[in-house]
């Protein structure tokens, strides 16, 4: 009985640890990520470049795409919480 209780506790502990952490696969996936750009932005670039011509992405295209994909002002730490003038 005592052994069974200890065994259950062990299984429960391992389950808690695993559920609270990214799996090694998830972590490896993120670390190997080659692109963190929002996929919608790439779509925007594609639309701007005409078929048959060499595609070109200018810095201004990225600014426009960023503003088009803007999802609203995010709640962000204020500079005053980090710096003093």
């Amino acid at each position, binding site marked *: 009985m005592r052994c069974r209780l200890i065994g259950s506790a062990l299984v429960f502990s391992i389950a808690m640890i695993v559920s609270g952490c990214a799996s090694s696969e998830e*972590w490896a996936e993120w670390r190997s990520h080659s692109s963190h750009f929002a996929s919608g932005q790439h779509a925007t670039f594609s639309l701007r470049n005409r078929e048959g011509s060499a595609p070109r992405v200018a810095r201004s295209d990225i600014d426009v795409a960023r503003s088009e994909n803007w999802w609203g002002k995010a709640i962000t730490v204020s500079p005053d919480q980090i710096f003093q003038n």
Partner: protein
Amino acid sequence: MVTRRWAAAGLLVIALGAGVAPAPAGPVEDKLIPLERYATPKARALASAHRLQLLKYSEYVYGCLPWLDVQKQSIGFQRPKFAEGDDRYFSTWIVVDQKDDPQFAAIPQPRRMSAMFSRFGMDLLRRMATLHEVVADANVEGFSVVTSWLKPGSLAPGAQPVNESIAVFMDKKTALDYLERRITAAELTTKVRSLAFDGQKDLGVIPLEIWDDFFMATFKVPNYEPPPGVTC
């Protein structure tokens, strides 16, 4: 890998030294902290003395690292909240464009902070350290990089999105010792000071880890052409 990283840093030095053509004033100049925002003569003197270098650095980041958005009025010589004296850190605040990624969401928050700083913050710091005149200025205490990104899962309909942020400060000697491989990443971790935030909530001390990440040295936006006159 180390060679590639230094090659990237070398290109920045060449770009800065070559007197790149001025880019549009708006997106480059508005990243610099304006003189009138500095409260002390020391800070104003630093900002005046190194204005040209900071402008070229801002132009380089704008033109060559388009996946980063530098916060307006964030490049300059900041004094940390915890500083008792007028210690000035050469600073940049970046917001990383990043999609809401399930793998990233599954990583515990302190690990996300470590990962984002290791990937983006450390790279910026490496590039900042190539501004030799700024680094050599005895009135510059060290470096600071604030890295912000969209908190995973915070894009719920009808809710205001939230950014996670990590601000890291390190003195010049520590930064240069690490960049020149005199100390390890583990030693660096024990010598930096960090402030972590979930939105505006101060998370206090988090177990920050720093490691080598070469994403920034290799990542390119497909078919991207930098602005005219900018060498990446």
